[in-house]
């Protein structure tokens, strides 16, 4: 990530910022996280949310750095990006979760000017309380699993044709409409962009990376 003064923000600096960014996201998106934890996101789980939130945070940091503003401005921008319990992240392709902002409110928090949250979920009956070392072991296992999944995803992405991969990247991660993807990639028309993205999705789906069912997509988006 390149800064306004030409210096590149290294991973450690970014991760140090992310620690606070994640803390804010945990507070602002508590309701969404609880819903994801209870399985309301289907294939889209809490880990997926954190990965998408991190990418969104990287974008916010890049914009903030380019303007050379003080750190307070970063947290203001990040707060705005998380508006509505992180609904901007949840609505993105391919997950496209929850068409409206959650209506669950906590009046005490809302009065303080903070985003609305749902109450902390009670521990499920029969669910054992984890000790510190058990929790650390489970977290390490989850990390190893997530890394394996990401390795797998990377391998499968790089088995796609470059145009398919880039059409998918521009549509799903850069949120470009099909017509813009087509014009950037020198394609005949947006139908060709649709076709490339659809083929990429189909190939990833066949290989188990993409979900088999999709929510309705907004018009003009691929």
């Amino acid at each position: 990530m390149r800064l306004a003064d030409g210096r590149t923000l290294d991973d450690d600096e970014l991760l140090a910022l992310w620690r606070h960014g994640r803390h804010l996201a945990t507070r602002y998106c508590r309701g969404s996280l609880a819903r994801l934890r209870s399985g309301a996101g289907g294939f889209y789980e809490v880990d997926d949310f954190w990965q998408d939130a991190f990418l969104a945070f990287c974008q916010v940091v890049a914009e903030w750095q380019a303007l050379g503003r003080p750190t307070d401005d970063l947290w203001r921008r990040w707060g705005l990006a998380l508006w509505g319990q992180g609904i901007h992240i949840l609505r993105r392709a391919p997950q496209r979760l929850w068409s409206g902002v959650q209506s669950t409110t906590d009046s005490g928090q809302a009065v303080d000017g903070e985003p609305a949250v749902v109450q902390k979920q009670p521990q499920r009956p029969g669910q054992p309380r984890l000790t510190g070392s058990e929790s650390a072991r489970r977290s390490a296992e989850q990390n190893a699993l997530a890394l394996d999944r990401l390795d797998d995803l990377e391998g499968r992405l790089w088995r796609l044709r470059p145009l398919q991969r880039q059409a998918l990247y521009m549509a799903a991660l850069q949120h470009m409409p099909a017509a813009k993807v087509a014009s950037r990639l020198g394609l005949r028309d947006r139908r060709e962009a649709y076709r490339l993205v659809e083929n990429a999705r189909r190939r990833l789906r066949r290989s188990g990376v993409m979900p088999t069912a999709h929510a309705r997509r907004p018009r003009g988006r691929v």
Partner: protein
Amino acid sequence: MSAVLRKVRAIYARLERENRRLLRLLAQGLTPRQAERRLMRGQSSSGDAKRRKSTSRRR
């Protein structure tokens, strides 16, 4: 978590690099197919180089 995030960022950066390379080739006047072939050639030649390096290391 940070190892996972580093990996996410690495994949994202790899896609972004390829995107810039593809758009640069298209700006040079190549057709999408030609640009794609050029990218694939670049990928396979870098793969060959890696394979050659690992083979020589084994020897």
